[in-house]
């Protein structure tokens, strides 16, 4: 029976993180990008939980709770900005968001 070792967790986490990164970089719809960011955060959470189990230390677990709380706040703020943007530009395409240029 295959035992689930920290390495498995780490690989899962790395895979999830990579999927998130790629999603952030290549997707044009800002909502998808948003969800990709959630993926990356949760990849980190898996890592934290796995190492907390491995090291028998609860600080990792606590961190995960913090990360979930911050992610929720971040999702709220992000969706607010997204709404404001949509009202201005009638689009959610990230290529249109280039006003931060010179």
């Amino acid at each position: 029976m295959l035992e689930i070792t920290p390495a498995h967790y780490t690989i899962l986490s790395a895979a999830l993180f990579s999927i998130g990164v790629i999603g952030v970089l290549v997707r044009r719809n800002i909502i998808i990008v948003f969800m990709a960011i959630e993926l990356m955060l949760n990849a980190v959470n898996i890592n934290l939980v796995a190492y907390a189990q491995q090291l028998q230390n609860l600080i990792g677990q606590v961190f995960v709770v913090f990360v979930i709380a911050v992610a929720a706040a971040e999702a709220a703020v992000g969706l607010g900005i997204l709404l404001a943007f949509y009202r201005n530009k009638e689009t959610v395409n990230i290529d249109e968001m280039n006003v931060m240029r010179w």
Partner: protein
Amino acid sequence: MDLIWLIPLLPGLGAAVNGLLGIRYFSKPVAAGIACAAMGGSLLLSLFAFAQLLGAEHREHVVTIANWIPPIPLETVSGVGQFEVPWAFRLDPLSGMMILIVTGIGFLIHLYSSSYMDHEPRGGYVRFFTYLNLFCFFMLMLVLGSSFLVMFVGWEGVGLCSYLLIGFWYHKKSAADAGKKAFIVNRIGDFGFVLGVFLVFFTFGTLDFREVAEAAAHMPVEAAGFGVISIICLLLFVGATGKSAQIPLYVWLPDAMEGPTPVSALIHAATMVTAGVYMVARNAVLFEHAPNVMFIVAVVGAVTALVAATIGLVQTDIKKVLAYSTVSQLGYMFLATGVGAFSAAAFHLMTHAFFKALLFLGSGSVIHAMNDEQDMQKMGNMRRYMPVTFITMFVGSIAIAGIPPFSGFFSKDEILAYTFQENKVLWGLAVITAGMTAFYMFRLIFMTFFGEYRGPSWEKDDDSHGDHGHDDNHGHAWHGPHESPRLMTTPLWVLAVGAIVAGFVGIPAAIGDFIGVGNAIHHFLEPSFTAESAGHGGEHGGLHLSHPVEWALMAFSVLVAACGIGLAYVNYVRRPERAAQWKTNWAGAHRVLTNKYYVDELYDATAVKGTMASGRGLWTFDKGVVDGAVNGAGWLTRAAAWVSHVLDKYIVDGLVNLVGWIFAEGSYVFRRGQTGLIQNYAVATLFGVFVFVTVYVVARYVG
């Protein structure tokens, strides 16, 4: 006598009231009333002052009413003097006589004008009386002024009024031009006069007539050569030739006839033009000390008299004849002053004022009757229509022709006698002139009042207009020649009486001794022509001819005058065709005379054209050189500014812009990275993470 300053002031006030208020508000009778009242008051004051003067022991009275120019230190020939001029008026026999002439004749002419100018519109009518009063104000100031400068104020003032009145009908170009001509020609004379006054002050340190005369009396007579007094006298005489229309400055007076006829009578016959004679007589002492200038004066006077008389022979304009006659008679007066007969000059001035004013007013009456026709060729037989004018003008003509016992005879004969004593050639000229005077005056009378009526016809609709025709002839219909209204004939009568009796104050010694009457005016005027302190006072007054010679001279001049009258009678009444014959036989001479010796053309070709040419030359200089310099400076400034602008734009601005350009272009590379797309930045971040991780891993595990 202390009120003599009111004599000029009253007409001045009249002019001020009429000029400031009247032109807008007063009706014709009110304005004429004010003007006449001012002159009447002035006349009464003059009579009063004159009576007092006759009664006074010392016949000179100076009234100072105000300070004018406070003492100013000025350079004179004898160190620094005080230039001080008060407003002072001097009443002495000469000025006393003059104020009587000016106010007396002035008053009559004011009366006459109130009727003569009646067809003017109200504004013009009041303006006319304003000018007329203003003229009397200045003329009285001229004769009463006690110093050269006060006299000069009047002198210039009458010139101004003369200009205003000649150009009274300013909408008529010829009148406006004549006014300008009179003013400009007078300026030439006035320039000489002013220089003379300067020299008087520089020489004597004062401008008061009496003080100058006293000072001059102590200086030697400049018998040989031209000393300072001679130069003063010459300059003053230049002024006199301008004002009194003598050669070479007489050309303005005939043109001045463009003014209304009362103006010609008052200003250009009786008063203003005699100002030059008056001024020379006033400075008799000075002139006595310059015998050479006296001779010049006499020659100029005699030649002017002759030349003007010859021109007068052929003129057909009734006023032009009288104008040349005036020039000629003024020449007589200067001839008299030139030979030292100052009282004779003043005497002739007075008698001339009467008969010439009379003749002018009479001609005005005729012109009025003929509906503003001035050409004598279109008149004739006027004595039938206007007997009063005829009789009075006839009296005036006899007076000017010199038939005894009319006034002109006495004054002219006195001049002839003095001239005979001094210079036989000048006497010859004067006698010829006298004959011509008689001829052209009676030519005027015969052409106007005798013979066939040659004027335009008129419609004889009804006789009810016959007597008071004055008002209705200027509006629309003209009902033929008619006698003038009473307001115009009354002055004619008064002046006619004057022209008859004025001579009796100067009965020559030959007749005077015979009937036991002295030469009153001669004796009366004497103090004005001599310096009180001078030892040789009165020496020039002597007429040293024996009585038989005087009788012979008188008889001769009467004979000459009678010949002139007879010739005129034959040529213009008995056989009028002879006049035309003369004209064809002597066509050349006639043409020269009708063209007034081409003097106007000569002056036009020399003085006027010369002035215009020099003006044009100066204008060219101004335009080319002065304006050129200014414009050149402007152009240079603009050129410098352009260079500066180029430097600023391409060098200074260029440097600044270059710096900006370098940074703008240099930043291109960096700008490309800033796409504003968040994903690009994220890629960069990820790439950076890879790099750091790679470096870490390599450093940790490989190196």
